């Protein structure tokens, strides 16, 4: 389905992504992990064609998307939705308009400049917002929403594109643990219910273990791990992050877990 072959991206002399190859045969929830500067974002941006690759092939259903130009390239971008760490919505426009932007590739520039959306389009946008639980926010400006809500608007925009692939570039890195869980649950649900492929850059290991079917670990632009979440042991994580024995993932973990303190809970509820 998606085949990445020897993809390299050079910035000056330095390779941000260095000869990366992997293959995804069927729709899956794939996590890409690695420390900052490992090339995760560059890899996703190349898939969406926000950044050009220096060499290599990314083939989706047999067609190389890296060589597309003009309208064909924009059509591919329409099929391959992107979700960003900082949401990248238009802050001064209302939520429903931001969701309708998912249709930009299919509508004429003139119609979109004057906001001439059909009732059917608006109804679909509102249905998607409803599905993500934020339909009542539709007339508000995007900038008035909390981070978690904005990220859900971004997911709604992605769904409006009706994409085959959803790329999520650190979708929860600027969210608190509660909102992070809501957003990740939404992405997982979209993958399971619609069968869309999701590729997410993540920087917390517990999130990768909990939500992904497959995890790809990157270090200095190279793929150093490719396997199931179960294979992602602490030792492997140390290799991916280039850390020594003092690395302890629970030190910075944001997972809301741990044994329940029944006595404390009773005391608080009494």
């Amino acid at each position, binding site marked *: 389905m998606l085949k990445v072959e020897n993809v390299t991206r050079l910035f000056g002399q330095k390779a941000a992504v260095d000869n990366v190859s992997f293959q995804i045969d069927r729709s899956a929830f794939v996590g890409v992990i690695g420390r900052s500067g490992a090339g995760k974002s560059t890899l996703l941006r190349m898939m969406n064609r926000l950044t050009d690759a220096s060499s290599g092939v990314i083939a989706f259903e047999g067609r190389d998307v890296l060589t597309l130009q003009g309208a064909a390239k924009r059509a591919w971008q329409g099929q391959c939705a992107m979700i960003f760490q900082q949401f990248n919505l238009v802050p001064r426009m209302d939520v429903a308009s931001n969701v309708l932007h998912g249709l930009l590739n299919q509508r004429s520039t003139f119609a979109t400049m*004057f906001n001439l959306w059909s009732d059917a389009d*608006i*109804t679909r946008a*509102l249905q998607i917002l*409803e599905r993500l639980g934020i339909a009542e926010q539709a007339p508000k400006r995007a900038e008035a929403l909390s981070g978690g809500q904005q990220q859900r608007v971004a997911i709604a925009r992605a769904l409006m594109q009706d994409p085959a692939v959803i790329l999520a570039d650190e979708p929860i890195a600027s969210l608190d643990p509660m909102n992070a869980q809501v957003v990740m649950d939404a992405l997982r649900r979209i993958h399971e219910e619609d069968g869309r492929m999701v590729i997410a850059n993540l920087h917390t290991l517990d999130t990768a273990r909990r939500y992904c079917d497959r995890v790809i670990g990157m270090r200095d632009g190279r793929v150093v791990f490719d396997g199931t979440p179960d294979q992602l042991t602490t030792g492997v994580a140390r290799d991916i992050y280039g850390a020594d024995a003092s690395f302890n993932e629970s030190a910075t973990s944001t997972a809301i877990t741990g044994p329940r303190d029944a006595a404390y809970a009773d005391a608080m509820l009494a």
Partner: protein
Amino acid sequence: MVDITFGPEPGKRPDLSNPTEAYIHLARRKRLYGFILLILFVALMASGFKIAQDRNAGDFLSGLHQLGAFPSEVLSEAWKNRANLPALLWQHLPSLIETLNIAAAATLLGGAFGAFLALGSTRHLARFPALTPLFRRTADIMRAIPEIVIALILIFILGGGPVPAVLAIAFHTAGALGKLFSESAENADLKPVEGLTSTGASWGQQIWLGIIPQVAPNWLSYALLRFEINIRASAILGFVGSGGIGYDLKLAMQWGGGKYDQVVAIFALLFCAIVVFDQLSGYARNRLVKGQ
């Protein structure tokens, strides 16, 4: 009666408690308002054009064939005396340099005073927030008065020469750059200032280290744009006796034929100077803004 005015309407009314219908309703209303505004705009433009044409003394179309009369007279005379052109270009070069000097000095003076006005009138940054309206109105007044009016007054007081021209252009420049500088300072990120404030920095230190590095490329780019405008302004001021190439142009042109070769030489010099500085400052601005 009530039924006629308020319904019952045919079809069902939108159910505003349903978010979808409420939003479609809102979108339709926005679209309608936009359409009404567009029609108003077109109607105003059309009627305005008619009023303007009725007030015109001559008729544009019937006068059109005379458009080329003066330029062709100038050019044909200059062509007859074309052998003089190189010498004339050389002869007028010093006055061109004078004009450029006037523009440069005025931009420097005006820019410095404009920066002062900008820092006094920018919200969140001003040392004395209560005085921001005073600084703003000062800049407004300086901007509102045309250079030529100030130049005429100063020439009356100081006599002709480059000094009144520099002062007149600098006055206007300070107002114009004050406004532009303050706009770009208003858009500056305040986080570095907060960081510096947290270390106990004074207002001057906060501005110099937190704001100036951020706005410097923008300010320089505005100042360069203003320099281009000031070259033209200083050439025009020559007509009212402030020296420079404008004064030469006036002498060559005012009594009609006979010196049209000089007119052509002066125009060629001015044109070249403006093109050269336009290109140079465009290049410099690009480098500043893109930071390479």
